[in-house]
């Protein structure tokens, strides 16, 4: 299976462990990731906060490239990217004048045809049955708290993915592979996301609540499908522990880590050894 791939800056930057995980896991499933030629940054929070035109134009350029190169589907494992791409696509689909204006801005024709998928959706495309048939190892030692965060499910009006209040798609996937996901309350609460750098106290507070809630509900790890969530919950966990004087030692995996392990890949192949909590 060939599929268009939009890594985004995070996966080509400090979250390259996520890219390693996604590539290894999907590779084992026979998915060939075709990286979009000369893609540009989606603009992230900075663009939609400071310049609403850029917030559409930046993702639109990459969408137009995907269209030009004939990709029907585009995988964007970072939910910030996928949300920005989808929001742009929805805005363009709704408004013809905007579509024309943006096509001129990004200097490529643009219809908004390419569908943007997040990581969970790729696994759903592949199919639970097929995943199960490829699995060589049960995930039964894992009791993950599946954490969706914000941008996988919100705003539901644009994203139309899962139930935005009680999403279950990761749980469904992982329990099929033998894990025992816990029920908990902070599945879609925000971790502070892009404010890691500039508003740390908020990030520490929000992420602390998330980890505590997962622990209180008996989770032995947290599973994410987002590079920013991983940074805040994993990389920042030591800071959180220091700040709140509490020891969590809660491992934080990418969804593709666990799926990869079920497929028989070694942790190191998936980059788990590069996480902070797992390998202090």
């Amino acid at each position: 299976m060939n599929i268009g791939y939009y890594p985004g800056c995070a996966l080509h930057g400090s979250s390259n462990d996520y890219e390693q995980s996604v590539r290894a896991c999907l590779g084992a499933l026979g998915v060939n990731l075709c990286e979009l030629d000369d893609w540009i940054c989606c603009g992230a929070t900075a663009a939609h906060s400071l310049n609403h035109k850029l917030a559409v134009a930046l993702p639109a350029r990459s969408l137009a490239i995907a269209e030009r190169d004939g990709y029907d589907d585009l995988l964007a494992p970072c939910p910030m990217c996928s949300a920005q791409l989808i929001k742009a696509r929805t805005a363009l689909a709704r408004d013809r004048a905007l579509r024309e204006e943006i096509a001129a801005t990004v200097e490529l024709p643009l219809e908004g045809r390419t569908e943007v998928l997040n990581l969970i959706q790729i696994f759903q495309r592949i199919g639970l049955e097929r995943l199960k048939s490829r699995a060589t190892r049960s995930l039964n030692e894992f009791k993950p708290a599946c954490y969706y965060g914000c941008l996988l499910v919100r705003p539901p009006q644009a994203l139309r993915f899962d139930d935005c209040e009680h999403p279950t798609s990761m749980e469904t996937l992982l329990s099929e592979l033998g894990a025992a996901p816990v029920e908990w309350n902070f599945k879609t609460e925000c971790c502070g996301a892009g404010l890691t750098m500039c508003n740390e106290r908020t990030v520490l507070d929000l992420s602390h609540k998330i980890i505590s809630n997962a622990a209180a509900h008996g989770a032995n790890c947290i599973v994410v499908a987002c590079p920013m969530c991983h940074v805040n919950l994993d990389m920042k966990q030591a800071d959180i522990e220091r700040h709140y004087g509490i020891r969590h030692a809660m491992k934080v995996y990418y969804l593709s880590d666990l799926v990869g392990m079920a497929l028989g890949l070694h942790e190191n192949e998936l980059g788990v050894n590069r996480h902070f909590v797992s390998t202090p």
Partner: protein
Amino acid sequence: MARIGVFICWCGENISRHVDVEKLAEQCAHLPGVRCCLTYKYMCSEPGQNLIREKIREERLNGMVVASCSPHMHLKTFRKAAEAEGLNPYLVEMANIREHCSWVHHDVKAATAKAADLIRMAVAKVRRNHALSPIRVPLTKRALVIGGGVAGIQAALDIADAGHEVVLVEREPSIGGKMAGLSETFPTLDCSQCILTPRMVEVGQHPNIRLYTYSDVEAVEGYVGNFSVTIRKRARYVDISKCTGCGACWNACPNKKTPSEFDFGMGKRSAIYVPFPQAVPARPVIDANACTMLTKGKCGLCAKKCAAGAINFKDQDELITEKVGAIVVATGYKLWDIGKEQENAKLAGYGEYGYGTYKDVINSLQFERLVSASGPTGGELRRPSDGAVPKTVVFISCVGSRDNAKGMSYCSKICCMYNAKHTMLYKHKVHDGQAHVFYMDIRAGGKNYDEFVRRAIEQDGAQYHRGRVSKITEENGKLIVRGVDTLAGEPVTIEADLVVLATAMRPADGVETLAQKLNVGYDEYGFLSESHPKLRPVETNAAGVFVCGACQGPKDIPESVAQASAAAGKVQVMFSREEITREPEIASIDERMCAACFTCVRACPYNAIERAEIRDRAGRLIKRTARVNPGLCMGCGTCVAVCPSKSAELEGFTEQQVYAMVESLG
């Protein structure tokens, strides 16, 4: 020779502001056939009508046009005035120069020109009108009431007390509706059962009321004054003519785990059950899905215990036909179940409130049962999850109401009141407890209503927070309610033991299907449509069918009862005559021309056209033809439009008349 009078109304300023009425009158005076043309400030008023009558007399008019508002508004008025002067009412036409002209066009010149066109058309038409006389049809003086809630009960008793027979159909095993399950009622806090059950007994014993419970309306045929209604009496498995209501059966039944419908799942019942002790009739039914005798052929204990031999496992549904002249619909409401799967994507539900996920998040009717003396906890408030007495309770208003994004856009009207009531009932039961209410506005319009809400706050200490709740989560047996107080401008988090959602009031399930059987309109939410929101509040557009209670829109008990009596009054007005008159403007088919293709039979939305045969004296078939039943035809004209052989004609709107109107514009 035509002697037509044209009467132009100013409608105060409504028409005269944008239509130059005087100039219009000058122009219209010269139209062919017009004898006189006058204007007046309020044509519908008494002096206005007198003016018309005077002119009819003086000018010996044989046709007239009133140019004013919509015929819906005043056609009857002017036809009556004409009739009083001996002019056949069907020689009166109206030109709607208000809704169709002055209200929508504000350029005086153009509006005046359009008004002239409208009048010219009406004049052209009225010149070709015939005198018609109303159709008379016989009348069955019996009424059907559908739904036995407080509204249906009131309507049935009023009609029965007036001396007419009533057939009351209720789909549950007992009458009583929601009110039978309420604890105490605002604004007086009188006990709901104490005021309702005597009336239920009255229904059960009334010589003029025939009660069908556990029954549905299967089909409705016929027309005003002459309906034929098929009722499906569902298999009850208990012969209520033999049953004494002793209770031996339900005490014996080993299957006691079915959630009670009457308690909205807060309590359990057996497979053979009466929904509540004061039920009318106080006779049980067997739930065929729960009874192991009926599902697996094992058990039969109840039959063994029944001394009266009333139990019959072979019972079958029964179809009964009843003839009635009028129908009152009183099917009431349900609370929106926001937890379950929703019927369409727009009603995405309220995952954020965890209804259906957290046991201690319940809806308001469930709360009523938990504080009701006849409820599953005997009136002691205990929360569903662990039976603890909740010390902090949060009531959330407007759940699913006033929500354009994923709920109903309307206000459910009564929840503000019962929320206040609930905080009081709660405080009266749990003295050291604290009630919180999240609300957007407090809607307490009504006699003694606002005083009641203030009492909840001032005397019973309910804490009101202005704002919606965003999310509820569960943490160590507490429900964490994240709300806001917009007056303080601060988020509010409350750790509650119980959360009560005032979910939107929606029409009862299945009301759309019933409405289609009755040809009654309903709005986008399924509430039945009255024929005029102000002037005909209990009539519907289907002649002889009336509505009352919460099936027409959210209502409390006083309003439901008032409306029920109003509907009963309308039925009595109908029954005060020996026959019914209907408008003669209906279709007829030229049977010589009819090609018997029966396109019209299929097209008629009222099933008013039948297939007929014309035979000679010897009984030999000459030809087949379509034939209109004058009792059923509503004069919609669909048959006229579809008939390929042009054999259908609408009295009062003949092709000749319509062409004349069109030509008058040329």
